[in-house]
C-alpha cells in the first residue's frame, strides 16, 4: 500500500472506522431528516395532485390556507350554480366534506365524497379489497329524503339515531381506507373502528396515493360533522372541460366570497405554510454536520500530533508544504468518502426502518439531497483538514526526529 493516506487509514482501523462513522451519522441525519420532513409533507401534495381535477373552490375567508380547512363551508347549491353558469368550461364539480378524525393513533383527515366521485379523488385507483361505501346510493337517498324533504305539520324536528345511521338498509357508517392506514392501524376488511364517536365498518381498502387515507359517504360526514346540515360541503374540486386553461378558468369562476386555487398550487401552499419546518430541520442538519466535521478535524489534528515523526521524515526528504497538506487532505477525503458512502447507505436503511415502524410517515431520499450531502461532506472534509494540514507544515523536524 504505497499510498500513504490510505495506508495510515488502514493501519489505524478502529480510529478510522469511528471517524468515518461520525461522518456517516451526520450524512445519514442530513439525508434522512430532509427525506422525512420533505417526504412526509410532499406526500400530502402528491396525493392532492392525484385528484383528477384542476381547480379547488373554497371560502375566501380561509385565505391561501387549505391545510386546516374542514367542516361546512360552501353551500352545495353553489357548485350547481357555477356548473350551470360555466357549463362549457366545467366538466364536473365535486363537493367534498373534510373533517379531522383519529385513526391508527393519529389525526387523519377523512374525506366525505359521493360514491360516484370516489374514483376522481383517488386518481382512478381500484379498490384492492372490499367495495365502495353506499355503492347504490341508498344511504344518501334515505338521508336526503329524511332531511331535505319539505317538513309536514307534524314533523318539524327530525331525529336520526346512531342505529338508523348504521342500519344495514342504509349503510351510512362505512369507510374506505388506504393500504398505509390499514397497515399502520392493523385494520382489516369488515373490521369496526370507533372514531368520531361512532363505530364505522371498513368496507374497502384502496391503494395509497389518493387524496386522503380515509373516505366516507359525503352525506354521513355532512350529517355527523356539520350539525345535521347536509346542504354544505367544505370545498369543491372542479374538473375542467377538455383544453380548459386552469389559470384563466380560475379567474372566470372566481366570485366574491370564494377563492379558487389551482390543484397544482397546493404544493406551493404547503411549502409556504410549513417551509419554516424545513428551516428547523436544516438547522439541525447543519449542527449535525458541523459536529461530524469537528470530529474529523479532531481526528486529523490528533493524527498530525501523533505523526510528527512521519511528517518530519517526509519533510526531511524534501516534501513540500503542498505535499504535506495534500497528505492530510487526502486522508480527510478518504475518511469522509467512506463515511459519506456509509451515511447514504444508512439513510436508505433508516428510511426503510422508519416507514416499517411508522407506515404513515414517508421518507423520500432524493438524488438531490444525496448530492447536497456529498457536497457538504466534500467541503466539510476540505475545511476540517485545513488546520491540521497547516500544523503539519509547521512541525519542527529537529524536535520530531529527536536529535541529541
Amino acid at each position, binding site marked *: *500500500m*504505497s499510498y*500513504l493516506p490510505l*495506508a*495510515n487509514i*488502514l*493501519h489505524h482501523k478502529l480510529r478510522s472506522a469511528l471517524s468515518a462513522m461520525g461522518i456517516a451519522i451526520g450524512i445519514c441525519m442530513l439525508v434522512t431528516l430532509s427525506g422525512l420532513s420533505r417526504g412526509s409533507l410532499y406526500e400530502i401534495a402528491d396525493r392532492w395532485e392525484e385528484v383528477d381535477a384542476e381547480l379547488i373552490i373554497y371560502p375566501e375567508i380561509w385565505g391561501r390556507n387549505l391545510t386546516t380547512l374542514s367542516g361546512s363551508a360552501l353551500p352545495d347549491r353553489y357548485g350547481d350554480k357555477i356548473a350551470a353558469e360555466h357549463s362549457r368550461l366545467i366538466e364536473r364539480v365535486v363537493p367534498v366534506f373534510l373533517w379531522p378524525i383519529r385513526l391508527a393513533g393519529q389525526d387523519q383527515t377523512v374525506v366525505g365524497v359521493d360514491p360516484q366521485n370516489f374514483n376522481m379523488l383517488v386518481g382512478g385507483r381500484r379498490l384492492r379489497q372490499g367495495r365502495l361505501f353506499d355503492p347504490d346510493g341508498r344511504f344518501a337517498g334515505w338521508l336526503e329524503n329524511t332531511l331535505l324533504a319539505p317538513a309536514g305539520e307534524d314533523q318539524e324536528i327530525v331525529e336520526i339515531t346512531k342505529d338508523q345511521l348504521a342500519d344495514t338498509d342504509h349503510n351510512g357508517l362505512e369507510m374506505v381506507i388506504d393500504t398505509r392506514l390499514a397497515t399502520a392501524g392493523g385494520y382489516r376488511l369488515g373490521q369496526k373502528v370507533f372514531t368520531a364517536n361512532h363505530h364505522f365498518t371498513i368496507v374497502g381498502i384502496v391503494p395509497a396515493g389518493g387524496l386522503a387515507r380515509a373516505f366516507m359517504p359525503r352525506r354521513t360526514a355532512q350529517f355527523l360533522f356539520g350539525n345535521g346540515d347536509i346542504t354544505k360541503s367544505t370545498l369543491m374540486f372542479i374538473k375542467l372541460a377538455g383544453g380548459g386553461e386552469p389559470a384563466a378558468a380560475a379567474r372566470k369562476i372566481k366570485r366574491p366570497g370564494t377563492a379558487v386555487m389551482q390543484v397544482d398550487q397546493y404544493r406551493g401552499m404547503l411549502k409556504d405554510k410549513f417551509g419554516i419546518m424545513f428551516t428547523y430541520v436544516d438547522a439541525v442538519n447543519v449542527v449535525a454536520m458541523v459536529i461530524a466535521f469537528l470530529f474529523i478535524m479532531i481526528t486529523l489534528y490528533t493524527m498530525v500530533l501523533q505523526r510528527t*515523526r*512521519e511528517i*518530519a*521524515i*517526509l*519533510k*526531511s*526528504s*524534501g*516534501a*513540500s*508544504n503542498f*505535499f504535506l497538506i495534500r497528505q492530510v487532505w487526502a486522508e480527510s477525503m478518504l475518511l469522509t468518502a467512506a463515511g459519506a458512502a456509509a451515511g447514504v447507505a444508512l439513510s436508505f436503511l433508516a428510511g426503510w426502518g422508519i416507514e416499517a415502524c411508522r407506515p404513515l410517515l414517508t421518507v423520500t431520499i432524493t438524488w438531490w439531497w444525496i448530492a447536497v450531502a456529498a457536497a457538504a461532506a466534500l467541503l466539510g472534509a476540505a475545511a476540517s483538514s485545513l488546520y491540521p494540514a497547516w500544523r503539519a507544515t509547521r512541525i*519542527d*523536524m*529537529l524536535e520530531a*526526529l*529527536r*536529535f*541529541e
Partner: protein
Amino acid sequence: MIRDQETLIARGLHKSLGKGRARLHVLRGLDLTVRRGEFLAVMGPSGCGKSTLLGVLGLITPPDEGTVTINGLAITDGEVARTALRRRIGFVFQRFNLLGVLSAADNVAISLRVRGLKADGAADELFEALGVAHVSRRKPAEMSVGEQQRVAVVRAMAHRPELLLADEPTGNLDSKNAASLLELFRQINHRRRQTIVMITHSAEAAGYADRIVHMKDGRILDQ
C-alpha cells in the same frame, strides 16, 4: 569564494538547543568543507554536537548563525530552495525513521515520489546489494533492527543524492552487516564519486572514509 570541487561549505555555524535554563549551545562557530566525491567521517565524544551538525547540514534545522552552502546553493535562500536542496540529499538517521505503516519498498517509493522521481531499478539493486530484498514487502515492525537500518540506507541512496549524510549508520548492525554497509558506501563513493559525510563513534567504521575529522565542544578540531 565557492570552488567547483567543494560540495559542502559550512562557515561559523552556531546552534543552540532547548529553552530557558536548559538551553545548550551545541555548535560554536563550526567550520567545515567537504569536497565533491569525498567520503568524510566525523568522530567525537557523545554530546559534542555531531548529530546537530548533521541536522544543520541536512537542512533539518537551521543554524542560529553561520552559512551552509551545498553545491553553490546557500540554505538561507528561502524555503523553496531549502526544499529543493533536501531532495538532493540522502539522510541515514541514527534511529532509521522508517514509516511504520508502509513496507520497505513503499518507504523507498514514497521517498522517491516526494522528490518527484519514479523507481528506476536503482532501489532494487540497493535492496539486493544490502541483502534486504527479502524484506522489501515487510513493514518495519516485521524486520530486525539491522534490516531496518539497511532499508533506511536504501531509502537514502535510491535517488542518487548529491550528498549522503549518515548518522551512525552502523550503530545497530552486527559486524558483518556493518562491514558490508561500509563497503557499499566506499564502492558508491568510488564509482559514482558520491559525497558522503558519516558520523560514527567507531574508528573501524571511520577507517572506510577518505578523511576523518574530530569534533569537540561544537567545533571541528582538525578541519
